[in-house]
């Protein structure tokens, strides 16, 4: 957090202005990104604690540390925090905000004031969600999916929580909107679409999903609020409504939104791997276009969440088929990543290991997803711990692992200091092992028939649940160790150079931490695209001159 490494001419953005107001009313995309980072980290810790407590409850059959109703509230709040407050904003709002303008060679997003407004919406929405814990008739117990008619009838504080989700949705829409305009308007003069870094491409695809899917869930949640307030049966069958319609409207958003969660993560992997292997990405265009293909296909698969809720046989077959199609662009990416590493001169770094852990976890997440997409199987494993393990493998083992990996990749750029690498390897190992023990056990016990959202289970499931709970302890220790390492190093770590990993994208061509307007001289853009390592020497020479 010093500007030792920044040129004397331009101060680092950390030191440009001081005081709390220079942060919470800042228009600087880097500071807004950090505001998100701090808030998201705090919420992640809350969500993690809730997850930890749920696992503790499941250490033995019967009631151990909480009642059934409490368990319902805990998994609801865990889900809401992790989905709406952590994972949806995570990579776009933190690393997108920080890195996108830099990677495009500019000094801010296209609409800086809107960007600040999005952050405020996020904070307002988050406060409303937290308020449901202490204010009103007790926190919601519907699960994060708010299925009608229960969400209409329960007397817990669903209304406020729904409104919070609505506000958070608009925050997400406006961030996406901002990125689309930024990418269209602010690319560096010689940077054509197919010379953009792949992270920018993934943010672009993501932004369109945020924009086109979120309003639907927004209005749906408003309808549930109206239904609760006026007692009209929009979705409640007792009053003439159709609960399956709710599910359609909910998943029309909530399936596409899983790509809001995963696409930016895939984009970051496409940044880290070329740098680690010191060679250009394999299949640039295929990766860029597959992002758009995933975003597009993702609109037509929502029905796979409803195979058991009452749909015609034809509709189910179509949804199942399209779900399979999503696997194609996803596999294209995985093969291209592996091909990028193949015969590269790989430099072992913590961020590379996080990325390969991601590929491992995500492969399990993706393949279990295919199994769930198969109609006949899904009927059996629907609403079991198998599903819970599947989505933790994709969202947690996928996106959150990449979030941590990105933290280790861009940390020296953001904070101007390097973390303790030995400690980071240890914490990664613990997290990886803990994660896989926790969720592999849940995957198996789910396959054996243990339902999700229960605080109790049959005695024959005890061993696997205990293994899973012990795994969650290792997992939590690993994560806490990682956070300790990063927080400590932000203040006390060794001073980092401008380009510690020998990358060539634009963020490695500016000082660490960046000055307020990012660029003190024109960046070097290769004609051969963003990952042309023949310019590395020139980049490093220019960095020395700063």
């Amino acid at each position, binding site marked *: 957090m010093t500007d030792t490494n920044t040129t004397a001419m331009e101060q680092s953005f950390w030191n440009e202005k001081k005081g709390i107001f220079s942060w919470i009313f800042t228009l600087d995309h880097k500071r807004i990104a950090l505001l998100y980072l701090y808030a998201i980290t705090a919420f992640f810790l809350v969500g993690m604690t809730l997850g930890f407590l749920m696992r503790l409850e499941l250490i033995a059959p019967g009631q151990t540390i909480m009642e059934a109703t409490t368990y319902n509230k805990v998994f609801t709040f865990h889900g809401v925090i992790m989905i709406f407050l952590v994972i949806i904003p995570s990579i776009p709002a933190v690393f997108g905000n920080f890195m996108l303008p830099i990677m495009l060679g*500019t*000094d801010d997003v296209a609409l*800086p004031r809107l960007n600040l407004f999005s952050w405020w919406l996020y904070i307002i929405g988050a406060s409303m969600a937290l308020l449901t814990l202490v204010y009103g008739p007790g926190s919601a117990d519907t699960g994060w999916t708010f299925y009608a008619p229960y969400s209409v009838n329960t007397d817990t504080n669903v209304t406020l929580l729904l409104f919070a989700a609505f506000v958070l949705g608009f925050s997400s829409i406006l961030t996406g909107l901002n990125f689309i305009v930024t990418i269209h308007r602010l690319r560096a003069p010689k940077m054509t679409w197919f010379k953009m870094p792949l992270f920018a491409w993934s943010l672009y695809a993501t932004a369109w999903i945020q924009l086109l899917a979120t309003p639907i869930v927004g*209005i749906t949640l408003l309808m549930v609020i109206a239904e609760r307030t006026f007692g009209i049966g929009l979705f409640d069958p007792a009053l*003439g409504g159709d609960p399956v319609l709710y599910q359609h409207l909910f998943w029309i958003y909530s399936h596409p939104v899983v790509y809001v969660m995963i696409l930016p993560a895939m984009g970051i992997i496409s940044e880290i791997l070329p740098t680690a292997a010191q060679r250009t990405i394999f299949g640039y265009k295929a990766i860029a276009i597959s992002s758009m293909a995933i975003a597009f296909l993702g609109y037509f698969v929502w029905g796979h969440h409803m195979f058991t809720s009452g749909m015609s046989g034809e509709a189910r077959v179509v949804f199942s088929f399209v779900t399979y199609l999503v696997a194609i662009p996803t596999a294209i990416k995985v093969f291209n990543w592996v091909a990028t590493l193949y015969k590269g001169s790989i430099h072992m770094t913590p961020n590379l290991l996080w990325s390969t852990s991601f590929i491992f976890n995500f492969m399990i997440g993706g393949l279990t997803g295919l199994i769930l997409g198969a109609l006949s199987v899904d009927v059996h494993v629907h609403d079991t711990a198998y599903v819970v393990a599947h989505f933790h493998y994709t969202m947690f083992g996928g996106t959150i692992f990449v979030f941590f990996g990105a933290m280790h990749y861009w940390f020296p750029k953001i904070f101007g200091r390097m973390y303790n690498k030995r400690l980071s390897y240890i914490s990664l190992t613990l997290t990886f092992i803990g994660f896989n023990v926790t969720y592999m056990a849940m995957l198996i016990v789910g396959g054996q028939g243990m339902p999700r959202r229960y605080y109790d289970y049959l005695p024959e499931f005890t061993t696997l649940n205990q293994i899973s709970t012990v795994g969650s302890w290792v997992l939590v220790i690993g994560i806490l160790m990682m956070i300790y390492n990063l927080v400590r190093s932000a203040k006390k770590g060794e001073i980092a150079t401008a380009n510690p990993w020998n990358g060539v994208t634009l963020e490695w061509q500016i000082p660490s931490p960046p000055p307020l307007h990012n660029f003190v001289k024109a960046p070097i853009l290769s004609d051969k695209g963003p990952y042309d390592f023949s310019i590395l020497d020139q980049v490093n020479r220019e960095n020395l001159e700063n």
Partner: protein
Amino acid sequence: MAHYEIPNSGLKRDDEGKKMGMWLFLFTEVLLFGGLFLVYAMYRFQYFDEFKIVAEHMDITLGAINTVILIASSLTVAMSITAMKKGLDNVAVLLIIITIFLALSFMVNKYFEWSNHIHHGLFPGFEAFNNLEKGEGMFLFLYYFMTGLHGLHVVVGAVLLAIVIKRIMLGRITSENIVFQENAGLYWHLVDLIWIYLFPLFYLLH
């Protein structure tokens, strides 16, 4: 060393970018109402007869007057933008004032319409409403919800237009720097457009 000017700076004025942002935002608005249109379509299909019975009792005259009002207001907004581009500040302000006046009369009309229904007890919670068939109540509730949300948009649009007037007075919108007014105008057209769909759905389809 000379200070490096970023050619593609995000801090420079970019009217194209702002307009693009507005268009994208309008997409989200269309989708917001799109969800409601979908629900309307579903229940119209399910409760065909009930929808028909209630729709026959809607006041077509009031609805038609409101349609004319909104279309006229779209015209005055468009004219105000042209006037502003030609440097006729006063004409532009006058036209926007007319627009806001039209918006207000729209809302007054709506007020009379709603209070007439409520007077007859046709609002959730009242005896008469509760005695309706399920589909009839659904129609009325969708009517309140969709026109209510639309009314909210009318109010927001009118506030935006009031801000345009203030900015013209302060000289912050000029014939050279007009993007805020254009965006407010775009928003106003959207408000108009949505009504063009609401009107037949609730008043004309029997």
